[in-house]
């Protein structure tokens, strides 16, 4: 397999890794399956693309994208905490709302960024002697590692612990003096700001923003989180953020291989979404299937209740 494929997987794994960190915060920390990401990913792309296309500062555009993303999270959070809608419905409503918003922001379904000054272009100008092939993955790696450590630190602060506890035992943390509406809002804002940042960077990396580019974000995000956590099982925050990033890299590698070699098995590009769903199903059902497979021991030993493997992860 050519090395360029690995580099592509690395770059994409890192760019989408920021989105995965966001999905991790809602899905795993807050226990909130947040569909807003389907809208906040292209929202980030749209805002950044609009600013860059109009000749604005790409850094400013990327920053605005994060603000827009956190506002999207805020809307979902308010629907859920103040109007008491279920978490899934809140996300679906915001996601659908954002489709129109994104079209409004861009003014058309697609904005090309070729020939415009993007963040990556600016970085290239700073280091004119280095090859783009290695500069881009290195920049993304640098950014992702910094974000990882900021998230790790935040989740171990007094406020961070209350956010974790909100997802773990809401009734208890309320009785310990925490306004769980507020912690949920915080978690959703941070998560969607990360997802929008990921969208903004992906638009600049791939050279366009498209109103449909968010399709399947949530499944991809979940796949990465679940794959990562089933590979690295150490249950501390430090290792779990590493795990989901590894999950993101593995997922992108699988996707790129499927895209490159899938033709020989009769796959088409449209089948990619199906592959990611299959990945999620497989990753989620592994503990269950492992438990079922234990029947082999039972036959051998003639004891029925030898092992009860629930596959529960802590």
């Amino acid at each position, binding site marked *: 397999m050519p090395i360029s494929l690995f580099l592509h997987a690395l770059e994409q794994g890192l760019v989408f890794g920021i989105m995965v960190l966001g999905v991790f915060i809602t899905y795993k920390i807050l226990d909130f399956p947040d569909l807003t990401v389907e809208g906040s990913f292209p929202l980030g792309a749209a805002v950044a693309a609009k600013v860059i296309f109009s000749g604005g500062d790409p850094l400013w555009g990327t920053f605005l994208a994060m603000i827009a993303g956190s506002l999207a999270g805020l809307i979902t959070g308010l629907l859920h905490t103040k109007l008491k809608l279920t978490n899934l419905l809140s996300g679906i409503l915001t996601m659908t709302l954002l489709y129109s918003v994104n079209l409004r922001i861009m003014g058309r379904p697609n904005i090309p960024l070729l020939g415009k000054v993007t963040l990556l272009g600016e970085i290239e100008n700073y280091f004119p002697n280095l090859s783009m092939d290695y500069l881009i993955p290195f920049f993304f790696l640098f950014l992702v590692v910094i974000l990882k450590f900021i998230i790790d630190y*935040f989740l*171990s*602060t*007094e*406020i*961070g*612990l*209350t956010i*974790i*506890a909100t997802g*773990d*035992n809401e*009734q*208890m*943390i*309320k*009785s*310990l*003096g*925490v*306004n*769980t509406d507020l912690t949920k809002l915080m978690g959703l804002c941070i998560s969607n700001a990360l997802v929008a940042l990921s969208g903004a960077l992906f638009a600049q990396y791939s050279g366009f923003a498209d109103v449909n580019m968010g399709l399947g974000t949530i499944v991809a995000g979940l796949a990465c989180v679940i794959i990562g956590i089933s590979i690295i099982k150490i*249950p501390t925050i430090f290792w779990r953020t590493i795990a989901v990033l590894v999950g993101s890299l593995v997922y992108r590698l699988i996707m790129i291989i499927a895209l490159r070699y899938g033709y020989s098995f009769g796959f088409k590009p449209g089948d990619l979404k199906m592959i990611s769903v299959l990945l999620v199903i497989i990753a989620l059902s592994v503990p269950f299937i492992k438990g079922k497979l234990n029947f082999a021991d039972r036959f051998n030993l003639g004891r029925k209740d030898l092992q009860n493997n629930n596959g529960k992860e*802590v």
Partner: protein
Amino acid sequence: MLIIKGLTKYFAKNSPHETLALDNFDLQIKKGDFVTIIGSNGAGKSTLLNLVAGTLQQDMGEISLLGKAITCQPEYQRARWIGRVFQNPLLGTAPYMTVEENLSLSLKREKRGLRLGINKNLRNFFREKLSELNLELEDNISKKVGLLSGGQRQAMTMLMATMFKPKVLLLDEHTAALDPESSKKILKLTQDLVMERQVDLITLMVTHNMKQALEVGNRTVMMDRGRNIFDIQGEERKKINVDDLVRQFSILGNRKDKYIEDRMVLI
């Protein structure tokens, strides 16, 4: 002083299933009092604690603590003064978080900020407190709470509910779901922890065990159908035994037919 005045709570109000859980309930408790609350199922004991804690909102009535009306404050604001232990040992702790994280969450109940939740000083403080429980938890301070036994978790919850020096301690049948051995331990721990701060702590303990209700604390309140039907303390309380209490219950509660049944439930 905790003053409860005319507290009334309906469930499923304005529906065919409307039930009156608390009926114009009055109770005044002074600092240092340890009140045990008894009553049959559906008497409103847990509802009373939930209203004091702010988990439920009353339909009528007022609650004030230390001269301050807390009736309109949400649960998370009252938590500054109120420590709680639930019947279910799984409710009081967060299972996927470590022992020290749980303790840290409980210690600081307002103005949480971006300081680290756990530092060296806190860790030493937690170790010291945990060693007093004699459950060897001090060596497992970074273990996930979900891996501990029910008794250990309840002991931790007891510690969490008292460590931050609350004004009110609410115990809702907190020994009922444990095996007899752990149950004894937790009750002993309760008495020790309450004794430490006897001067200014108000304790409310719901129990189904009449013997326990008379042995622990210095005042006993009997509830029936949401009302305070019998309230006894001091010398009078020392003279009374479980049989007297059961008799009182059947007379005051107007339930001669239920005498035998309640006797079996309550002893």
